[in-house]
């Protein structure tokens, strides 16, 4: 590597040297006598710098940067884990709450249902009793009515026979009157 540079420098030496002489001293940069010390020290110093940086300084910086990246990633992961745990706990709590609510409403519904059933049964029983009483009463009323109606005919016949007896002055048989009424009532 270094030999190539010195070779290149040596090749340039002839040209540059001439230029320098022609221009009466010329640029200090073209003074070939100064090339060797600069190249030697450059090679030494750059190699030293490369070794220091690549072996010690850069790995150290890289380590710190990697460590920081790792730490941030780890913290983020921990935060994400805690968040998911929190979410889980919240979901559990909400589930429990919903369950309790469902249970409470179930109990309320059951109670309401059983109360309704009891009331219904009671009502049905009372209604049945009432309707039985009603029927009984109706039967009694109709019986009384029938009897009354029958009595009406008799009373009418009696009254009619009495009226006829008074009118014609002679007794008319009850059977005749009845027959006549029946015929008239048709």
């Amino acid at each position, binding site marked *: *590597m270094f030999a*190539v540079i010195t070779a290149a*420098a040596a090749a340039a030496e002839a040209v540059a040297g001439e230029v320098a002489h022609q221009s009466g001293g010329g640029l200090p940069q073209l003074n070939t006598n100064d090339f060797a*010390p*600069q190249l030697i*020290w450059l090679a030494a110093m750059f190699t030293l710098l490369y070794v*220091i940086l690549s072996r010690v*300084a850069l790995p150290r910086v890289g380590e710190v940067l990697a460590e920081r990246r790792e730490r941030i990633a780890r913290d983020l992961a921990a935060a994400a884990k805690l968040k998911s745990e929190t979410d889980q706990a919240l979901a559990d709590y909400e589930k429990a709450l919903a369950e309790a609510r469902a249970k409470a409403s179930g109990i309320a519904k059951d109670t309401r249902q059983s109360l309704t059933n009891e009331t219904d049964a009671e009502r049905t029983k009372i209604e049945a009793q009432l309707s039985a009483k009603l029927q009984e009463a109706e039967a009694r009323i109709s019986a009384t009515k029938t009897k009354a109606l029958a009595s009406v005919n008799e009373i009418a016949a009696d009254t009619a026979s009495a009226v006829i007896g008074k009118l014609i002055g002679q007794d008319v048989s009850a059977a005749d009157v009845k027959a006549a009424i029946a015929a008239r009532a048709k």
Partner: protein
Amino acid sequence: MAADAGGGHGPMSQFEIKRYFPLDLFGQDASFTNSSLFMVIAVASITLFFAAAMRNRALVPGRMQSLAEMSYEFIANMVRDNVGDEGMKYFPFIFSLFVFVLVLNMLGMIPGTFTVTSHIIVTFALAALVFLVVTAIGFARHGLGYLKLFVPDGVPIWLMPLIVPIELISYLIRPVSLSVRLFANMMAGHTMLKVFAGFAVSLPVFAKAAPVLFTTAFTGLEFVVAFLQAFIFTVLTCIYLNDAVNMHH
């Protein structure tokens, strides 16, 4: 910007290399120069900064640690966006390039300092390093298939004699364009500053305000350029690396 001590007073004197301690390494001149000094300062300040910033390794970062992390993420995102996750293997290399160029550019903004990246040989060496690394990665990952990079899909066969050399040249020119862009920007900016600062000294009193104001505004711009050029150097490296890693053309 204003490295006058010992050198000349021209706008180019700030780019002169000064040898503090002569040193010889296997026959090569390895002297400790002002350029070496600022490379050492750059590496030391980057190391100290990261050591101080990451001392606590705090989960919640302080100011310094935030800055260190920001720079890390900035380049990491750049590599990921341009090359993908595959490219993260080469992240330390890209990051080293970025902070090295950035800190050298910024150190050069302090008055009296030397700007290492204003020298073509330094930027060329870095660009050549990028080029060689990218090419090596390309061949390592795709074998000879990496050469398909120079044969774009959907181009009619009769255009190939034209397209392939163009692609090849544009690939080989990368280290040159990459290095010249950085070097030229740094040199031009610092030269401009020096020239206009020189006007502030040499002009008569009633005209001094103009170059002073200009130099002040231009210094702000130069800070932007110092950052931008380090950024561009790094982004282009990422784009070249993407070719080598993914072969998306």
